[in-house]
């Protein structure tokens, strides 16, 4: 047996994951990715005494399974890389290399990923990142960041340009690294871990906290209540509406369409204010807890939300009609920042960025959790892979989320705030939990020891897959169009750097 087959949120004994000899491991997993229904949801290493155990998690989106396999390798033995067979492994192998120093052969670029405090090579510093360079009299470099012009997170973008035209962009991240995965182990209290999950990425608070809460409940053999299924599904869709609306505002700002910028901007307000009404926090921090609910969703809240959405819809449709008919907007969005379907597949794109280039990848439909199995979610797909497709996906997904929420509100489950004492996690277990955040799939994995203590925690934000797409999308674009591409992907720095 090459792999053990699990479902989303299923825990298994850690030692039931088959350990393959490395060449077999490589052959097996890279062959899996030849099947277009499969994609890599996580691939990482954990230290086992003097060795590293590599764990590869490949999801089969057709039959809702995840195939887990592993291999035990030394720190210094050079290994043929996965990335030469499939580019989607590129970032994962860089991370393994950065953490443990394993030399991968034939990797396109084993550059640092996030300069973690516990990196294996301490000589790599954030100030000496090995950028790709071209010796040329005609070309010039443009460096942007780490601090950007707006109120956003830091990262460095290095452009190679021919006049106004971008030939190449390299993105250097790591400025946001806070050591979250290590803190998950150090901090033993459940409330501390909830707080950590809430602070992974501030625009995906519901997403990451839900992934953690589901993982924890399953690991502790506590059944997720009807109420929690309902509240988490609802909150995930609300978060999607809020961020997509904010993004549409940002994209309008970047194409200097003032009306859209202001109207979408203010339309985000009632949605996040609803979070505030529900849980006292506009970004939904404090809302999701495993094992209990501090803020039960009541019928009154349901009525209130209906009113909010009704008012939202009218104005949202009105401004969207105007925005998507404005030549000044279309002229800037169409054919800007294109990722073709083939490139998207090679990179292993996830989430909205995958769907805009006609890749049907959405955990809500492929590995359903909470109420998505009853919602029967149909992902919205676009074909052109440009900024326009990304804007349209945001628009259509907002409409879809509103429809889902309206249906959900017809059956608000009974609710309470009873707090159960969470039992200890299962000892010697491995668990993987995935949810579809507004940006794409969020995947958390955990491993426990013989005492049921967490010994490893791995977080993957969708941005980890998608940053490369941003770098490729802007090639041959005018540098002045870069902000539009950036905003339309809206990737997370904090979620990537952890």
């Amino acid at each position, binding site marked *: 047996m090459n792999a053990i087959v699990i479902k989303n949120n299923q825990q298994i004994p850690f030692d039931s994951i088959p350990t393959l000899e490395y060449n077999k491991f490589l052959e097996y997993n890279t062959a899996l990715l030849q099947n277009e229904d499969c994609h890599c949801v996580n691939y990482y290493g954990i230290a086992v005494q003097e060795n590293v155990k590599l764990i590869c998690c490949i999801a089969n989106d057709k039959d809702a399974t995840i195939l887990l396999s592993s291999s035990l390798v030394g720190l210094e033995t050079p290994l043929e890389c996965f990335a030469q067979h499939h580019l989607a492994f590129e970032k994962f192998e860089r991370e393994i290399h950065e953490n443990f120093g394993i030399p991968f052969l034939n990797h396109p670029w084993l550059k640092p990923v996030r*300069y*973690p*405090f*516990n990196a294996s090579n301490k000589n790599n510093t*954030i*100030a000496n990142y090995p950028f790709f360079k071209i010796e040329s009299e005609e070309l010039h470099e443009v460096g942007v960041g*780490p*601090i950007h*012009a*707006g*109120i*956003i*997170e*830091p990262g460095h973008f290095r452009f190679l340009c021919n006049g106004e035209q971008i030939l190449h962009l390299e993105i250097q991240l*790591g*400025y*946001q*690294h*806070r*050591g*979250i995965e*290590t*803190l998950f182990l*150090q901090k033993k*209290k459940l*409330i*501390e871990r909830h*707080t*950590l999950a809430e*602070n*992974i*990425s*501030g*625009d995906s608070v519901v997403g990451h906290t839900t992934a953690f809460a589901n993982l924890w409940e399953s690991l502790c053999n506590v059944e997720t209540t009807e109420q929690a299924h309902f509240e988490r599904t609802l909150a995930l869709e609300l978060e999607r509406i809020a961020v997509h609306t*904010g993004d549409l505002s940002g994209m309008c700002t970047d194409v200097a369409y003032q*009306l859209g910028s*202001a*109207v979408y*901007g*203010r339309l985000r*307000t009632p949605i996040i204010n609803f979070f*505030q*009404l*529900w*849980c*006292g*926090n*506009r*970004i939904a*921090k*404090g809302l999701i807890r495993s094992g209990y609910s*501090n*803020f039960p969703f009541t019928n009154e809240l349901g009525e209130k939300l209906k009113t909010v959405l009704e008012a939202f819809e*009218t104005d949202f449709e*009105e401004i969207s009609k105007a925005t998507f008919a404005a030549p000044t907007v279309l002229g800037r969005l169409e054919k800007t920042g294109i990722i073709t379907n083939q490139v998207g597949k090679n990179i292993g794109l996830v989430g909205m960025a995958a769907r805009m280039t006609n890749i049907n990848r959405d955990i809500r439909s492929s590995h359903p959790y909470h109420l998505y199995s009853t919602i029967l979610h149909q992902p919205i797909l676009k074909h052109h892979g440009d900024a326009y497709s990304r804007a349209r996906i945001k628009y259509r997904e907002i409409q879809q989320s509103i429809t889902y929420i309206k249906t959900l509100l017809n059956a608000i489950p009974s609710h309470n*705030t009873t707090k159960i004492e969470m039992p200890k996690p299962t000892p010697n277990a491995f668990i993987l939990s995935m949810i579809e955040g507004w940006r794409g799939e969020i995947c958390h994995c955990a491993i426990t020891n013989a005492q049921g203590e967490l010994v490893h925690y791995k977080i993957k934000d969708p941005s980890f897959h998608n940053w490369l797409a941003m770098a490729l999308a802007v090639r041959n674009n005018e540098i002045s169009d870069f902000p539009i591409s950036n905003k339309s992907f809206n990737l*997370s*720095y*904090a979620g990537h*750097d952890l």
Partner: protein
Amino acid sequence: MINNLKILFHQGKQYIPDVTTIEIPGVFRGLPIISNEKVDVNALEELCPTKAITINPLQIDLGKCTFCGECSMAFPKKITFTKDYKIASNSREALIVKQGVESPIKLNPESIRKEISDYFSGSLKLRQVCAGGDGSCELELGACGNVNFDMGRYGIEFVASPRHADGIVITGPITKGMAEPLQICYDAIPEPKIIILAGTDAISGGIFADSPALNRHFLETHTIDLYVPGNPIHPLTFINGVLELIRNRK
């Protein structure tokens, strides 16, 4: 054109007429009050995720608090969160709420530098630096300037270049990677200049306080002009804090 005007008209009035007096609708956890009720204080101290609660005497440090509300839900008679969003101060000490003391958090006018009201009372341009922030305080700082809160009406604005700025607003626990860029950015701002820490992570490190990936040296070597608690900060907390800072005269 007509359509655009229609859209404009349909928006109605979105701005908050007076951001200093408006009441926040719904649930909001602002200034807490700690009663004299007898409870198991050790359990209370233990449940806080960020060690914001300390006992003997019992107090909550809003510079460490993430406003998760767990303490008041476990001990509703002991701790209640009011909707008072004016919780910013120029004094780190003032952020510590003590048992039995019910007084609003204020700025200490004595320690506001004179240049601040001299130069900035009518116009304050700020450069924001995210140093490990998760993006939520950044969203809320962005919201300060939107059509609802419209901070620009007081002449307070965020600018792109530190050269155009009168001060810096730091979010996040200050990662090792951002320590140097932060210093460079601060140095590029012309004198006189102010420093504002926005959010729990910036003020105390928050849940990241003991992470080995931080470098908070900058804070030890500079004087902070304003602390704005929250996780994330609420736009009203930020705007009111800044207004008090620039308009307060000794």
